[in-house]
């Protein structure tokens, strides 16, 4: 199980060919209180860099981009009732959606935790 980060502050946690995607702890801190998450459609296919979801805080809305290419196999419906999970546990129960990766090699282009920490410094 590896977790990688995109420069746009999404993370991908890879298990087999399924990647769990959300926003980093740093990103949720920057956004402040999350009040709404617009989830992607199940079965939707995205290329790396496509807009997939929207995270809304009190005064701003931010697009979430696909850090890797793939098809949406699961969405975190719990966020409909409790979008604050993105604040309290962004890399755990505050995940946003899961992608079946179409090109696992795209993971190599992302940052590991150490590189991401340097990126946000």
């Amino acid at each position, binding site marked *: 199980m590896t977790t990688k980060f995109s420069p746009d502050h999404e993370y991908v946690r890879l298990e087999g060919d399924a990647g769990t995607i959300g926003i980093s702890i740093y990103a949720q801190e920057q956004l402040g209180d999350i009040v709404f998450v617009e989830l992607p459609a199940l079965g939707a296919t995205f290329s790396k860099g496509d807009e997939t979801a929207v995270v*809304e*805080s009190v005064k*701003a*809305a931010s697009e979430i981009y696909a850090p890797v290419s793939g098809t949406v196999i699961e969405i975190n419906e719990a966020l409909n009732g409790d979008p604050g999970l993105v604040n309290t546990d962004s890399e755990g129960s505050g995940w946003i959606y899961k992608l079946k990766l179409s090109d696992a090699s795209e993971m190599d282009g992302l940052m590991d935790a150490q590189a991401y920490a340097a990126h946000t410094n």
Partner: protein
Amino acid sequence: MRYLPHSDAERKEMLQAIGASSVDDLFRAVPASLYQEHSLELPDHQPEFMVEAHMRALSQKNHVAGSGPFFIGAGAYRHHVPASVDHLIQRSEFLTAYTPYQPEISQGTLQMLFEFQTQVAHLTGMEVTNASMYDGSTATAEAVLMARRLTRRDKIVLSGGVHPQYRDVVRTYLGDSDALVCLKASPEGQGDITDHIDDKTAAIVVQTPDFYGHLRDVKKLADAAHAHGALLIVVVTEIVSLGLIEAPGALGADIVVAEGQSIGNPLTYGGPYVGLMATRSKFIRQMPGRLCGETVDAAGRRGYVLTLSTREQHIRREKATSNICTNSGLCALAFSIHMSLLGEAGLKRLARLNHARACELANALEKISGVELLNSTFFNEMSVRLSKPAAPIVEELAAKGILAGVPVSRLEPDQPQYANLMVLAATELTSDQDIAGLCAALEEALA
């Protein structure tokens, strides 16, 4: 002296940054046929009293709606607006900016909008409403775009009973997309819209009472749409009808849009009017327009705010739910004051009165040879087929000071089979004498 802040070089730089070759390039969406080729040839300036005399002479050419029998409806209705409405909307408390950009300091305006939203929600039988839109037609187009976002589907089916101008506005908004199915006008009753719903359909759009006056079976249409995962958008052009007809929200509509002119707002040459939009709570994030909410301040006192602004253009930019970031504030205020004066019982009485006047009109029309009533149901508006083309008859009666109705050919010019059709409305202002005058003139013209 004109003050032009941008130099040619700066303009060039800005155009380059957005990839446009000229300023005209920014207006490409406007069809070439609509550009004014020749100069307007306006007269030279005149002294103030000359201009006043000129305007007075022009205004004397008008036929004022209240000056004789008047049966024009078709989306704009002549109702009595109490004098108190006009007085109250001019009070200084309401003279704040119509679209407050620092909204929370305008508590009076916000409270008014909140009351307005509450009234519209009650009327339409829906859970949430916005602070109003430009008019019924643009609200319809916005509802169509909203349905596409909600369902992530493209296909829109417009009923043949939707006001022809509303259909034109939707067509303009969607840019003649293949996914827009406009059914043929249906003056004689229920269309076959349910046959056009499939699993790609985002929404069907149905007006009730429709353009020709017929009431539509909202429940049946909602069930048919929902069976395919599509939404039902209900359009209401005569809002007074909701004082008598069951609210579309109670019958399964997903989005209700309406023209609110009939309450509080005079005809005024066709505008400004006020669009109403209401929907279900679960769809609120995709609803366009300003939204006023009630909350409490730090001391626990009631206060009003503009809420869910992240849907709107000033925050969401090009990703906003709509490019509309204003509302018809003054018309909404007039609506809200008139509605408050009426109250629930008053609105019901007003609606009954409208229907009763329309029944009188229908009974009288049916007795005229050469007039065939097309409606088995109506609220305050109906269609007739005349034994002669309607447009010249309407002109002939207008010359006698009787405004008989709207010839369908005026709005459906490409449908010669409707040349003899006319739409007529009656309201609480329609007297027995008005009806008698119309009928006598019609009898003479059709003889």
